[in-house]
């Protein structure tokens, strides 16, 4: 790969600002407890539905940053194809931002819509890299409320 940074291709530029199709996330009791266990939470509202209700919540509470899991179906049509090609083969998670808006509970089903908000080519410790910044909005299907927004940074090199 030449050392000079290439320009973003027209396909790359066109992908910025284009929302993806919604992905359905299910927030289950099992998922909440597994997340809470992995992260080391001890607060009973994340493990015990009765304790959560005693604390004034409608059901088991999802810890901050947990929005369930996308529904996996091996028989479903392939997901969204890449909007553009890049010469970079390896990917790293570059960062996470979380902006909680509403409590999320066991039984919630969320629609997640991700939009690529920035794309730039840069040079770093690993050589040339493509830095993607995306924002995801999570909306609860039952009441239409936006429960959280997240920002993710992906590094391809």
């Amino acid at each position, binding site marked *: 790969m030449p050392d000079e940074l290439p320009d973003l291709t027209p396909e790359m530029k066109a992908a910025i600002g284009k929302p993806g199709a919604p992905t359905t996330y299910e927030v289950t009791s099992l*998922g909440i407890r*597994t*997340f809470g*266990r*992995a*992260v*080391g*939470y001890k*607060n009973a*509202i994340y493990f015990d539905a009765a304790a959560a209700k005693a*604390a004034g919540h409608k059901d088991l509470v999802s*810890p*901050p*940053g*947990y929005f369930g*899991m*996308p529904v996996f179906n091996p028989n479903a049509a392939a997901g969204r194809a890449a909007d553009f090609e890049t010469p970079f083969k390896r990917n*790293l*998670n*570059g*960062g*996470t*931002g*979380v*902006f*909680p808006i509403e409590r999320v509970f066991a039984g919630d089903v969320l629609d997640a819509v991700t939009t690529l908000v920035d794309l730039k080519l840069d040079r770093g410790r690993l050589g040339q890299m493509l830095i993607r910044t995306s924002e995801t909005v999570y909306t609860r299907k039952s009441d239409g409320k936006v429960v959280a927004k997240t*920002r993710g*940074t992906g590094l391809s090199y």
Partner: protein
Amino acid sequence: MAQTMWDDVSEGQEITLTESTSSQRLVIWAAASGDFYQIHYDDNFAKGNNLPDIIVHGALKGMLVGRLLDEFAGDKGWIESWDVSYRGMDKAREDMTVWGKVTKKYQESGKNLVDLDVGVRQVNGTETTPGRATLSLPKK
């Protein structure tokens, strides 16, 4: 869980957690997050990709920061936001320190707010996950 009151917080105040990163924990995280990339649990795969050992998931570090903030905010507090960058790799099987330091205490739009610098430090003191957060806390 103890409830932090905004009145009792002071700028410069520090909070920490010391967390293990055993392979078992990383496997539980893989199940919780759906991130099954083998560099996080398969020694041979990690070393075959020029890594010194299996490494901790970046997102797990980000969520450990979330837990630190959640436990500080208490049931009556609220995390307005937190944002971290994954600047370095953390080898598994070593303890890490998840930390926060209050940088600003203020009131805005009817909320009692606290800004913090946050991060995750390796045992040798190297910072790998710097970031910032804002909490809303109850007032006495």
